[in-house]
């Protein structure tokens, strides 16, 4: 996967280079201190991915996004979340990283990148990745099958999680982190440290809460941008 880094700070570029080095399939083919040079480069040298700083003098990252023709996938980096949110509405923005970028956060981003390109390759080859349709939970030594589509939300309750479906609420000894790994990212989203929701079950969103059937679920500030980005907003 060919990528370039665009950031006016040499120290930020060096850090990004070092982070990319930990991902074997990522090849940093060039880096640029300004968006103009990067624009010229991508015109003649197609790349798969751009790590793009938003806050740059003269031509900003947002200007770059609006100028570049046939854009590759882009991961934004910024010291201000607000700037990232402004640009996050574009379909080719894969993720945004708030500087200084922690290795853990970068790793999560790398997983997102990998998933995206795997899906794209599969789609190109006509072999779309089939996602599991259901999940088995252990209740009193009985394995109960839940269809992903029936799950409305999952709430963390101490050492347990509670899975709410249309008709039942199941209490399972597990954690949100564990169940999150089993759920398809395309359908579920963590919107608060105690809640994962099924995206398709949202009734409405008001201020800092989501309504799912009759349950009002809080949205944490840090999860709000991702939620907003995934909405098909008119």
């Amino acid at each position, binding site marked *: 996967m060919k990528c370039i880094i665009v950031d*006016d700070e*040499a*120290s930020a570029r060096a*850090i990004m280079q*070092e*982070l990319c080095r930990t991902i074997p399939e990522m090849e940093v083919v060039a880096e640029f201190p300004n968006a103009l040079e990067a624009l010229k480069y991508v015109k003649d040298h197609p790349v798969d991915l751009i790590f793009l700083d938003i*806050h740059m003098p003269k031509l900003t990252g947002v200007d770059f996004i609006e100028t570049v023709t046939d854009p590759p996938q882009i991961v934004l980096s910024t*010291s201000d979340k607000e700037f990232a949110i402004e640009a996050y509405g574009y379909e080719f923005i894969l993720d945004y990283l708030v500087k200084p970028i*922690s*290795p853990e956060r970068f790793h999560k981003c790398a997983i997102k990148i990998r998933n995206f390109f795997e899906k794209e390759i599969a789609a190109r080859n006509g072999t779309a990745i089939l996602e599991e349709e259901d999940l088995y939970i252990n209740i009193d030594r009985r394995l109960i099958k839940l269809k992903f589509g029936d799950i409305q939300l999952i709430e963390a309750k101490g050492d347990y999680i509670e899975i709410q479906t249309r008709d039942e609420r199941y209490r399972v000894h597990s954690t949100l982190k564990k169940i999150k790994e089993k759920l398809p990212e395309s359908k579920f989203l963590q919107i608060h440290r105690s809640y994962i929701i099924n995206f398709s079950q949202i009734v409405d969103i008001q201020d800092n809460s989501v309504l799912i059937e009759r349950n009002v679920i809080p949205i944490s500030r840090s999860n709000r941008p991702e939620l907003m980005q995934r909405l098909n907003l008119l």
Partner: protein
Amino acid sequence: MAERPNLDYIKEISGGNEEFEKKFLNIIQTEFPKEMNEYIQTLEANDLEELAKIVHKIKHKLGILGLTDGYKLAIKYEEDLKYGNIKLKDEFREILRSVEEFILKIA
């Protein structure tokens, strides 16, 4: 006690890659003094809009050097500058001084 700049973040990123650590220190030793001079000159010129942009850039370095409180102060200062408020300039200058000293020490 006031927080001190450190290389914990850089060591975490490098995972023991000394070549990167060296490269990074060289960069920051060149980049930071330039930004600090730019900051001082722009403050003297009273160009607060431009000053906010420089503070924004420096802010990232404070985070890199483990100055959590300094980073938070820079966020506030940058925001204040957009409204023409420079009341945090002395505190910010003090932070810059500590980074400058640190950079000289590790040179």
